[in-house]
């Protein structure tokens, strides 16, 4: 082994090592930062690139793909003093490798802590009910705040999602009871409403029917009265007509009618189906024989006085008793 031998070997080794130090293949999805004597100079994009050996060295190999960080569980106290356990995820992407490498010491940890503290502040300003029902709003507010906060680091936070919100067990149980009570209340109210409606309807019906009945009675009374009036009018008219007829005509005709009716009445008495023998008073018997005379007597007594004749016609029984002397005209 001469000196030249060793030199040749050493030289080849040096060249190979130098080449390997100067040639960098950056894989897709990463950006490498280059430091010259420890100071950042430039960023290598994916692909093959050369750096100056001995001067430059690769600083950080920054992942430029979107990454997911799990935000660890933490206890958060809401505005109404409920303590809930919350966890979530954050999606972020590095846009400027240099800033993300040198502006912040531990990027993922920084984003995690920032998100955690902001979850506390956002949820702390809300009631438990709001926290449980306004996740979109929480995510939106978190995204805006955290994204603005990470901008000096050349990073963009794309999404922050709250995963689980777990209230304490006793609170969950109370919420369950509350919901049940709410439903029961609703059911009771509905039932009472139904009862009320049906009662009202029934009362309405009863009222309506009573009104209708009363109206019917009133109408009937009116018509009864009218009928009585009409019959009275008819009676009056008939009486007037009869009296007029009597005034105009002969008393004998009147007598005929009375006698006719009288006999018919007796005929009806005789035809009574439950009696075989009818006892007739003497007076009635004598009345039969005196009927013919009644007309004569009336004519003789009253003469042309129609009113008296009518009175006699009205009261066919008011004949003078048998044996009484017939009235004598002077």
């Amino acid at each position, binding site marked *: 082994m001469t000196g030249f031998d060793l030199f040749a070997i050493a030289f080849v080794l040096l060249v190979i090592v130098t080449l390997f130090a100067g040639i960098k*293949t950056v894989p*897709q999805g990463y950006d490498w930062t280059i430091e010259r004597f420890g100071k950042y100079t430039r960023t290598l994009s994916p692909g093959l690139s050369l750096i100056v050996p001995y001067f430059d060295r690769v600083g950080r190999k920054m992942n430029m793909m979107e990454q997911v960080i799990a935000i660890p569980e933490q206890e958060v106290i809401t505005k109404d003093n409920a303590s809930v356990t919350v966890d979530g995820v954050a999606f972020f992407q590095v846009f400027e490798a240099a800033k993300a490498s040198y502006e912040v010491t531990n990027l993922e940890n920084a984003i995690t802590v920032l998100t955690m503290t902001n979850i506390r502040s956002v949820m702390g300003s809300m009631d438990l009910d709001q926290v449980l029902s306004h996740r979109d709003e929480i995510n939106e507010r978190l995204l805006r705040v955290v994204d603005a906060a990470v901008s000096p680091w050349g990073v963009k936070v794309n999404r922050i999602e709250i995963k689980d919100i777990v209230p304490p067990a006793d609170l969950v149980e109370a919420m369950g009871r509350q919901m049940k009570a709410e439903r029961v209340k609703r059911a009771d109210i509905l039932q009472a409403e139904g009862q009320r409606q049906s009662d009202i309807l029934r009362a309405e019906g009863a009222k309506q029917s009573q009104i209708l009945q009363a109206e019917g009675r009133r109408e009937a009374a009116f018509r009864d009265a009218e009928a009585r009036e009409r019959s009275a009018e008819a009676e009056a008219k008939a009486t007037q007509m009869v009296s007029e007829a009597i005034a105009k005509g002969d008393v004998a005709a009147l007598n005929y009618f009375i006698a006719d009716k009288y006999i018919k009445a007796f005929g009806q008495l005789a035809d009574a189906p439950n009696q075989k023998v009818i006892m007739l008073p003497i007076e009635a018997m004598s009345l039969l024989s005196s009927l013919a005379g009644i007309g004569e007597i009336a004519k003789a007594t009253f003469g042309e006085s129609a009113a008296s004749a009518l009175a006699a016609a009205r009261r066919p029984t008011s004949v003078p008793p048998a044996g009484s002397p017939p009235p004598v005209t002077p």
Partner: protein
Amino acid sequence: MTDMFVTLGTWNWLIFGLVLMALELVAPGVFLFWLGLAAVLVGLVSFAISPSWQVQLLMFAVFAAAAVPVWRRLARTDRTAQANSPFLNRRAEALVGRVFTLEKPIIDGSGTVRIDDTVWRVAGPDAPAGSRVKIVRADGASLTVAAA
């Protein structure tokens, strides 16, 4: 080791070169292919003039160093070639030229625009909410807009 080099000489370089080229396939992007090429060249030259093994080694080093500019030229032409997804991992640049509607006004030159269900910080002239803006430049995660 050196004895083997001396005795086998030329063939060794060729074998060594081919092995390096094969290794490039196993561990891609480590420049081994070019070293292999240099080794094969040394072997071919050695057939012609059969120099001493020390000179052969030095030749190998020179060829390997000379391979760098050649490779760079090839890489440059490769870089100008259009990639299938030019905006891979460069989302902000992909948004340049697109037009969006402001949800909230731009005040004092900075505001936000909602794109793809996330919020982007934008810088540009003040504009009321509802006005349409065009993205003209992407600078990191911040977009520069102008009235569309």
